């Protein structure tokens, strides 16, 4: 019943202040995304309009498999995408020694893609994806061929199919090529890009709201009154966390579904979208909970405001950042931004609409949430009452 008390109060409080919260968490970021997205449309080139890539191939393996690969790149199917050159290339594809053997044994022997000054990170990424798919296909063919040669009796066909399917499942759990090319924002439309940018803004805003709510409860005496009731510190923390989680889910869902309804973003699998929202909300809630435990109000607000500004500036100027210093700033932002995990998961969802592309991000978010939760619990246990 105590948990019900917290949940009911959060829901009632939200309903009674719904207009205000809608404006802050939904309307404002949505409008911002729409306006900036509209005026930035031309900077975001869809994949279908990407020009032919000029590539140079450096074969260090010189195996049958590497030759097949080179023939594939020179083939008719790839004419519209790549042009093989000896010099003045935009991309240098290096096939390392051991590639052929690695391919047949399903080992990681990455094909390197070097992007020159004239190249684009986004196109390089697309090339990497194509190479990935090719290698997967090659490996599957090899497996099937090998199995059929070995097993020709009818009664072994069932076993053969099972083995092939097993191998296929294994392949799709591992990438055969690693590359240092970041997932490009240019593969997204401007609306999709900014929908993620302002989702991050909303994340920080909600965290700020949760943290401020907690401090108001302490300053106003509500916390003291609650703790004078028969409830432990841990119970209070957990009930507060769960009710905050529900609050965060509501507004995250509202945000993404609004974009979806307008057909501008998050239009992939609904099931995956909800999973991402649930797990991303879990991470955001736990981050807010820990911050409110370890930092004073002013410090946590200052940090979150700074992160919000960095995120918005970074998101709005991302296309320009890609052009600076071989895109190093853009890469730094993608890798080290505080919401990098959340952004990359949504981005993969938008680009690939495939569970495999988001599962690593989801797992990392779950693990991070768990770690934050445990740290928070320890802090609650050890923090003495008067320190609140």
């Amino acid at each position, binding site marked *: *019943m*105590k948990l*019900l*008390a*917290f949940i*009911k*109060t959060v829901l*009632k*409080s939200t309903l*009674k*202040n719904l207009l205000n919260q809608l404006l802050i968490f939904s309307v404002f970021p949505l409008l911002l995304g729409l306006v900036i997205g509209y005026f930035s449309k031309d900077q975001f080139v869809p994949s279908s309009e990407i020009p032919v890539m000029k590539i140079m191939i450096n074969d260090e393996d010189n195996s049958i498999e590497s030759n097949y690969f080179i023939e594939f790149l020179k083939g008719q199917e790839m004419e519209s995408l790549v042009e093989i050159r000896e010099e003045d290339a935009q991309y240098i594809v290096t096939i390392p020694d051991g590639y052929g053997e690695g391919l047949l044994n399903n080992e990681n022997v990455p094909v390197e893609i070097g992007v020159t000054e004239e190249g684009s990170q986004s196109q390089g990424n697309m090339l990497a994806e194509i190479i990935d798919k090719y290698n997967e296909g090659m490996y599957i063919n090899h497996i099937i061929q090998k199995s059929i040669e070995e097993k020709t009796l009818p009664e072994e066909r069932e076993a053969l199919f099972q083995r092939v399917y097993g191998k296929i499942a294994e392949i799709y759990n591992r990438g055969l090529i690693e590359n240092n090319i970041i997932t490009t924002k240019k593969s997204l439309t401007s609306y999709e890009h900014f929908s993620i940018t302002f989702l991050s803004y909303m994340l920080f805003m909600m965290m700020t709201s949760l943290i401020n709510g907690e401090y108001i409860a302490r300053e*106003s*005496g*509500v916390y*003291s*009154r*609650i*703790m*004078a*009731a*028969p*409830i*432990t510190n841990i119970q209070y923390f957990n009930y507060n966390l769960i009710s905050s989680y529900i609050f965060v889910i509501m507004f995250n869902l509202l945000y993404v579904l609004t974009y979806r309804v307008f057909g501008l973003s998050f239009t992939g699998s609904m099931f995956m979208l909800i999973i991402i929202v649930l797990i991303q909300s879990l991470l955001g809630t736990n981050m807010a909970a820990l911050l409110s435990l370890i930092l004073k109000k002013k410090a946590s607000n200052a940090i979150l405001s700074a992160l919000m500004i960095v995120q918005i500036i970074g998101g709005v100027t991302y296309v320009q950042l890609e052009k600076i210093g071989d895109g190093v700033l853009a890469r730094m932002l993608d890798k080290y931004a505080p919401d990098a995990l959340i952004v990359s998961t949504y981005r993969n969802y938008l680009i690939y609409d495939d569970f495999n592309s988001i599962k690593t991000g989801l797992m990392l978010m779950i693990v991070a949430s768990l770690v934050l939760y445990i740290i928070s619990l320890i802090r609650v246990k050890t923090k*003495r*009452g*008067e320190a609140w």
Partner: protein
Amino acid sequence: MSLIEVKNITKRFGHKVVLDNITLTIDEGDVFGLIGPNGAGKSTLIKIMTGLWDSDGGEVIIDGYDLKKEPLKVKEQIGLVPQEIALFEGITAYDNLEFFGYLYGLKGRQLKERIDEALEVTGLKDRRKEKVNKFSGGMKRRLNIACAILHHPRILIMDEPTVGIDPQSRNHIFEFTKRINKENNTTVIYTSHYMEEVEMLCNKVFIIDLGQEVAYGDKKSIKSMISNNDRILIEAFDYRREMIQAIKQLPGVNECIEEKGLIKLLADKNSFRLEAVLKVIESHGGRIKSINFEEPSLEEVFLALTGRNLRD
């Protein structure tokens, strides 16, 4: 056994001792006043007694339960009216009561009945569906109390409940405190820096200053700490001026001041005889209109014992 036993409670913040070896007992049915100036340690002691803060020494036993060992059992018996308006301002009075009712294990029909009862008792029944941020200060204070009495606590702790409110609401709170003590035998712990409130409501008093006990006991014994004198006010008329000198000569009269027909006497309890004064007045042609005995106020007790006014 007393309902509440506070034994040798000490509390420090860094090197500063905010509570120094406080010991007191409160019996069931007491209206216990905890008084002292701002910063004396009243709220700190309340926070320790309600389990919000840990003490650095000593123990609190409530109804036989050690607060440190069985905090939840202790908290079930306490209703706290905090000094702050500890309410969710964005939701209604009813929603606030529902929330706190749930915390005390109330639910369903019982919760609804208790909410209605609390609203009735505090005079807020008509405002149940209004948001708290629309309430006046006095109404918020009353709702503050309503949230504390939902679960019918044995012990009601009221931490400066009348700060910043209008006289009507203040009186309402006084009447409520007397009623809940009389009708339900609820033990009330009432903290204030307004001595007159405590003087009016409480039968037992603990005066605290700078974290230390200044005086403790029932009101009479505390007041007798500063003076063994009775103060008597006699309103008389038609008397000769020599009468005052004659009264001053009487045994047990320590002081006699006359001011526009009002004779103020400070008399030793043990040796003074009122009949002797009355005879002197009569023999000097005076006629008596009224006689009143006046006790020192708690504020005067505080001043006498600490050398400071309460509001310094």
